């Protein structure tokens, strides 16, 4: 008896046997015996004309019967026959057009004519832009110029990730949004403006905060990522996701009058963690909401990012890979720092230890007090504070903001001591006194309370939400900034 090995997919026709014993003097006889025992297998091996299907090869031991006597190849009865498909294929770009149209319409030619006459862009480059897919994290300060220019430049698809709503305080810098957009989702406002600039643009809207759960899924379908985030957890998240997905991460950040830009995770270059292996302690670096930012600054940095995005897509020029560009608006100076990939980097190094996305809130130390027991008597909210003031309780209301903030808005009866000055003034207070501390939104005041507790002030409490919450919940006449 010869034996025919049955491919996995055909075992449903042979009662799950992985081989079938057959008799026959030739291969044709043996196959006939197989199809007699298991008739359902026949249509898999033979076409309607009764010929072996084009993809079916029969091997006798190690020999292809095409090089023996075809199906008249003689059998002794101890052979093993194998059914081996012939498989080939390929993308064959010539045979059919790729899904995205690889050419420009007359209207597009007219629109992009100043690009098309640049030899570095040309028809080929403009088609590359049209086929490019860019993920934009954030539609805020950096996202505004990015969105406008990427749309105008002819990038084919932009995915925007943002969960925020346009606020009056955004309009000083986020030029993609207008006054009539206040209260709208930034996603909708930005998308409308971008489509107005360029109706050829496809936009994917992700109404969510980027998280470890959704980042890989969202970013996977894009060619590159441009980071317009304003906080450390998301910045590390974007970085790690880009390294894991091998997508270039076009980075920018802004603070007060200074900005930075570079390209991470591109070719053999470094990632954000090579530059900053550890996040700063929470609260050390104030956010733009706390520290302020020159409205024009994100315009410059975002446009630098947009430039790098376009260069990477076109494959022209020298990118900021391995260089951190520093911009100082007050003194109008650009500087550069050399960057290098760190072979010991936990994400992009030679032996990475971070091989999946982690909890970035925890990594940046801003997990909601998991390690310290939350003591509710430490906190007081705006409404409680108002009641306390109305009752005429005897306590000190301490404002730890900066003097220029105090000029914008204040809570009546508060005493101003900026956080940085506080240590010098601690001895001026009675350690047993009841003290309520506030700032703009509750971050700095928590640090002040921690400091005071550590120095024996047992009755110091933080006012959650700061003067912003006061304006929201107690006194709308106090301006928000």
């Amino acid at each position, binding site marked *: 008896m010869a034996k025919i090995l049955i491919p996995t997919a055909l075992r449903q026709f042979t009662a799950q046997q992985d081989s079938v014993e057959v008799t026959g003097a030739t291969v044709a006889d043996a196959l006939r015996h197989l199809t007699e025992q298991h008739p359902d297998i026949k249509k898999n091996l033979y076409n309607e004309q009764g010929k072996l299907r084009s993809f079916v*090869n029969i091997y006798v031991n190690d020999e292809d019967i095409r090089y023996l006597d075809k199906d008249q190849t003689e059998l002794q009865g101890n052979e093993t026959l194998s059914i081996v498909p012939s498989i080939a294929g390929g*993308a064959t770009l010539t045979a059919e057009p790729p899904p995205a149209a690889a050419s420009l319409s007359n209207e597009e030619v007219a629109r992009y004519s100043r690009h098309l006459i640049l030899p570095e862009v040309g028809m080929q480059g403009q088609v590359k832009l049209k086929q490019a897919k860019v993920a934009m994290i954030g539609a805020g300060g950096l996202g505004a110029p990015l969105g406008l220019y990427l749309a105008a430049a002819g990038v084919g698809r932009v995915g925007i990730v943002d969960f925020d709503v346009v606020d009056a305080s955004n309009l000083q810098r986020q030029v993609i949004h207008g006054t009539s957009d206040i209260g709208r989702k930034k996603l909708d406002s930005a998308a409308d403006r971008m489509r107005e600039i360029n109706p050829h643009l496809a936009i994917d809207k992700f109404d969510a905060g980027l998280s470890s759960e959704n980042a890989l899924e969202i970013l996977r379908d894009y060619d590159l990522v441009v980071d317009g985030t304003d906080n450390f957890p998301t910045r590390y998240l974007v970085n790690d996701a880009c390294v894991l997905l091998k997508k270039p991460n076009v980075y920018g950040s802004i603070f007060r009058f200074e900005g930075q830009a570079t390209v991470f995770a591109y070719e053999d270059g470094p990632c954000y963690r090579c530059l900053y292996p550890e996040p700063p302690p929470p609260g050390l670096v104030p956010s733009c909401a706390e520290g302020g930012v020159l409205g024009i600054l994100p315009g410059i940095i975002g446009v630098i990012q947009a430039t790098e995005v376009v260069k990477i897509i076109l494959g022209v020029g020298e990118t900021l890979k391995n260089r951190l560009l520093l911009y100082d608006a007050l003194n109008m100076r650009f500087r550069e720092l050399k960057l290098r990939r760190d072979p010991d980097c936990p994400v992009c190094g030679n032996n990475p230890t971070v091989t999946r996305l982690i909890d970035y809130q925890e990594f940046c130390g801003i997990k909601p007090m998991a390690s310290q027991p939350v003591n509710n008597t430490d906190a007081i909210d705006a409404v409680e504070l108002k009641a306390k003031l109305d009752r005429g309780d005897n306590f000190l209301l301490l404002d730890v903001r900066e003097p220029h903030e105090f000029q914008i808005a204040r809570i009546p009866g508060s005493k101003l001591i900026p956080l940085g000055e506080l240590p010098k003034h601690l001895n001026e207070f009675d350690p047993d006194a009841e003290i309520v501390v506030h700032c703009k939104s509750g971050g700095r005041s928590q640090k002040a309370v921690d400091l005071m507790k550590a120095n024996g002030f047992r009755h110091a409490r933080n006012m959650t939400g700061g003067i912003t919450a006061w304006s929201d919940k107690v006194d709308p006449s106090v301006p928000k900034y």
Partner: protein
Amino acid sequence: MIEIEPEPWKTMVRHAETSYPNECCGAMLGRIEGEKKLVTEAVPLENAYAGEQGARYELRPEDLLNADRAARSRGLDLIGIFHSHPDADAYFSETDLKNSCPWYSFVILSIQRGTFHHANSFLPDLEQTKADKEEFKWPKF
């Protein structure tokens, strides 16, 4: 549906990326658990296409035979075939269809500018007239 374990997936992506700008090909071995095909091992094979390999591949039947034997000897099944599409999407092309076989899952990895971009799995029909997309899970690193 077909699911690929992390180790074979890494092997496949690496094979596809290092073969870039040429197409690569290989075999996927594993187990069938009810409705699910689980790939536990990937075997990179040589692209035997005689011409320009940027947009073509061919599997040598002998290589496939050996992969099938290797699978059987370890109690595994030959479940599918993978190949790459350099700088093209992971779609089942006319060439793929005309040289396909309905017995296996066909996983295609799109490699864009040298790095993995996305992938799909297809099940071609017996007459080589169409291929349905198969539900497909690869590891999310």
